[in-house]
């Protein structure tokens, strides 16, 4: 009986495999709350250190508020990244992911989305509060919120490439930061420039378009790079 049955009869669709992966990662995050809370606390603490370390004067803080928030968000995203594939690599789940008949692109994207929902989104949501603490000029809240909303997923997607490349290494230390942070610079520039320039009357739309374009490029390309990197790491 040589009749390789066509795929799909009892098989799952790519969409259901995508949902299953997303659900699983959210469930794991829910059960490992400290993994989610730690980067978030880190974000709050880093942002709080600046008024203490630089200057508590409202005028000085207003100048650096946007930059501080962006850098704190970037570092928090980096700190959270390590959880993305590590446990899966160690317990063998990653091999199962790689051997799925479905496109690894979508499965990696599902993991990235799940990861951003628990690590990036909370930072975005709390950012106006921290911005208030840092005396961000009144007109810039919406700009900051929207740029972070578009920018942090890009940071997650780029970080995923770095994590995928280093997941097989025994001691990673700072290598993840060395790989990921340079790639994140354009996002950081676009995000902080947007806040600064709109204060001086520039239109917000242009910056949102740039960040939106970065997000689209990251969604379409970064998971491909992550998938390829994972195959190399598991090899």
């Amino acid at each position, binding site marked *: 009986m040589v009749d*390789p049955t066509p795929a799909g009869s009892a098989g799952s669709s790519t969409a*259901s495999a995508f949902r*299953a992966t997303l659900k699983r990662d959210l*469930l794991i995050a829910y059960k490992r709350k400290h993994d989610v809370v730690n980067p978030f606390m880190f974000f709050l603490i880093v942002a709080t250190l600046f008024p203490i370390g630089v200057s508590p004067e409202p005028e000085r803080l207003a100048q650096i508020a946007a930059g501080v928030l962006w850098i704190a968000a970037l570092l928090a995203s980096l700190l959270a990244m390590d959880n993305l594939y590590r446990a899966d690599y160690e*317990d063998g789940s990653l091999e199962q992911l*790689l*051997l*799925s*008949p479905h496109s690894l692109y979508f499965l990696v994207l599902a993991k990235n989305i799940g990861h951003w929902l628990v690590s990036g989104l909370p930072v975005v949501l709390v950012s106006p509060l921290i911005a208030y603490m840092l005396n961000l000029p009144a007109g810039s809240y919406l700009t900051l919120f929207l740029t972070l909303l578009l920018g942090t997923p890009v940071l997650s997607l780029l970080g995923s490439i770095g994590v995928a490349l280093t997941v097989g290494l025994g001691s990673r230390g700072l290598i993840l930061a060395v790989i990921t942070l340079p790639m994140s610079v354009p996002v950081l520039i676009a995000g902080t420039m947007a806040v600064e320039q709109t204060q001086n009357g520039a239109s917000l739309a242009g910056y949102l378009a740039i960040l939106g374009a970065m997000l689209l490029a990251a969604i379409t390309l970064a998971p491909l790079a992550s998938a390829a990197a994972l195959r190399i790491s598991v090899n």
Partner: protein
Amino acid sequence: MTMQDTHLTAIEPGTAMLAANELFCERDDRILFQRLSFAVAEGQVLQVRGSNGSGKTTLLRIVCGLNDSYEGDLTWYGAPLAEQVEHFRHELLYIGHRVGVNKVLTPLENLRWTCGLSARVDDDAILQALAAMGLRGFEYSQCFTLSAGQQQRVSLARLLLSPARLWILDEPFTTLDKHGVAQLEFLLAEHAAKGGAVLVTTHHELHVPELEELELG
């Protein structure tokens, strides 16, 4: 330096599900195997044997497609495997020595995902499979509370749930108790009887009909 040269009696073409031709693999300047040819046919259990470090796991990972640092040809139903990866993966069930069980999830949640990656499986079927593997009462316990053997059983429950024809199992007997060993042997024999094929590494003496052996190292 480990070297060897293994040829199994060729199986008639057409019946072979998976065949390897003249495989060569070198790792850290050490030749693990060269000119290694074998075939697994429907209804057959192929046990890969060999001393520690002889490349059993590497061979299984090469066949699965997890490791691509080899030379030689792999064919799937007579055609190059690389051209039909998607179909191959639909028909493949691989359990490595890292069994793919997440520690914070429950057995039910683990299997929902692992099985959901390739097939549609409902919760009732998973609960039945877990009960059949002797895990009744543990369905909703987080896996870090289970013993190594029980975690192995969670992953082996996939054998009952998957429609895959080719099972590739890396040391599936290691943590199982006597009863578990007998049950797994029964499952392997049953799978072969239904026309499936098994590629398995173990040091355990397998009591399965239609057993072929491949000696490495």
